[in-house]
């Protein structure tokens, strides 16, 4: 899709940078911001490539590398940690055979750490793309990930 059509509703003002980067990333099938995107944003906002790169690199929700279709953000805040967060990370790492920050070879999942996701009353929690999963345990995580995997293999 044409990039300018994608961000037509944003004025070319620098304060729209984060919103624009979000939009471009969300519309990329691999959930990341490409070098072309960065160049395009720099030109659109009349700023330098390095400025845009610096912003995109700073914020943990942005990625400059291709990621999986499903981004798993596991909450590693003190509350989730206390209630069992760390072992949840191991469950996912073992099941998907990736390490924190990694992407599965079929480009389906990327596992990322996240700070407090604001659902501490239902800890431990994780987010997969825009969906929140709460009160996690080992079985529940395996079930959720398997379901996503199965839905994608039948398509």
């Amino acid at each position, binding site marked *: 899709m044409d990039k300018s059509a994608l961000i037509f509703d944003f004025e070319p003002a*620098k304060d729209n940078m984060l919103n624009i*980067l979000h939009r471009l990333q969300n519309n990329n099938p691999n959930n990341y911001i490409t070098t072309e995107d960065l160049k395009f944003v720099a030109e659109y906002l009349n700023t330098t490539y390095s400025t845009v790169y610096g912003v995109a690199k700073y914020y943990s929700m942005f990625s400059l590398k291709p990621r999986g279709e499903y981004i798993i953000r596991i909450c590693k*805040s*003190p*509350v989730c940690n206390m209630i069992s967060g760390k072992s949840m990370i191991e469950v996912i790492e073992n099941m998907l055979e990736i390490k924190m920050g990694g992407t599965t070879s079929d480009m389906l999942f990327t596992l990322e750490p996240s700070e*407090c996701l*604001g659902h*501490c*009353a239902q800890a431990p929690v994780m987010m997969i793309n825009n969906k929140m999963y709460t009160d996690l345990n080992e079985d529940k995580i395996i079930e959720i990930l398997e379901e996503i995997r199965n839905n994608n293999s039948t398509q």
Partner: protein
Amino acid sequence: MIKEQKIALLNAGKYNPERIDEYIAMGGYNKVKKALQENPLDIIELLIDAKLRGRGGAGFPTGLKNKFTNESVCERCVQKYIVCNADEGEPGTFKDRVIMEQDPHVLIEGLIIAAFAIGATKGYIYVRGEYTTSIQKLRVALKQAKEKGFLGKDILHSGFDFELEIKLGAGSYLCGEELTLLESLEGKRGYPRIKPPFPAEKGLFGMPTLINNVETFAHLPYIIEHGAEHYKSMGTEKSPGTKIFTISGDVNKPGYYEATMGVTLRHLIDDLAGGMKDNKKFKAALLGGAAGTFVDETVLDTPMGFDTLKEKGAVLGSGAIIVMSEERSVFDMTCSILEFFKHESCGKCVPCRIGTAQLMILMDQAKENSSKKAQILDQLLYEADYMAKNSLCPLGQSPILPIKSLKQYFQHQF
């Protein structure tokens, strides 16, 4: 047995947040109508009189902040801004999310009232990027409020113009700090600014800016409707009104509860949160999140207010309460907190960048050599104190809070 008392969450759950008509039918936006007929200075006086204090954690008098921003003048100040800090990221805190998801209109109403009071015609709600549901609800609410003429030009024929926009964060805890938030809002990396100048003087794009937390704005419509005296009849003398407490950890019913300021931790845990889970014994509570303080059972009956807790060496902060039973380790919790600070330090200033890493090194040493723990706790305190005195922003100034309280209450369990 205490009960919940609601101001910020008064309408939450009582209407469909995607249907403004339901909100209006409940008397919604009447407070905006009322406020727009008043003198802006009277609204500010009302907020000062009500002794409303910022609900984001610092507890600064909101009325005074309004007054400073209203009075702020400079030659090139062509525009005043209002900013809502919805970058909720303090561990254990989820009150703003509940307001935005269930009652976005009370927030919009509060923002219009505050904007009118200070003379701002442009406002932003800065929401953290992970709060996808909040963002979606706010977008719908803003669109509907605009269609009904509560936002835009000449609101309700008062002659007052006000535009409101949503801006997204992208995963930086530090951007919840007000000056860093303004940098991020301008489309930059989330690096803190040197303070002063304060936002009231030089905020967004260098213009006078009022920045408040979601919960603070949500109190404004209520104060406009019921007046200062009624508001002050709730809570404590120095911290009137109500507060949303988000209780997590080892209780039977973790969740969000709004109660009057001055409620005790014991009442919150026993009456509202259903008591300790599995009848285990209470060991500690972490008040205010990572940038908060540990307390033990001696604080269970202390009224929860900004000043009353301060006397006990504790903080109210954002209202987060992480309850820990006898089986939990304060040492592990401290590790978790310090790891968090290390990860979130932006690296702009040296005391915080090196300090947060240094604190973790000390914790690792304590793990390996438990006989030296007492000595290491003193070292932690020394480092954190140095950071508090020399760091640029509240992040580097925060580790002293949990560490100092640890020394005060749990020296022997560290």
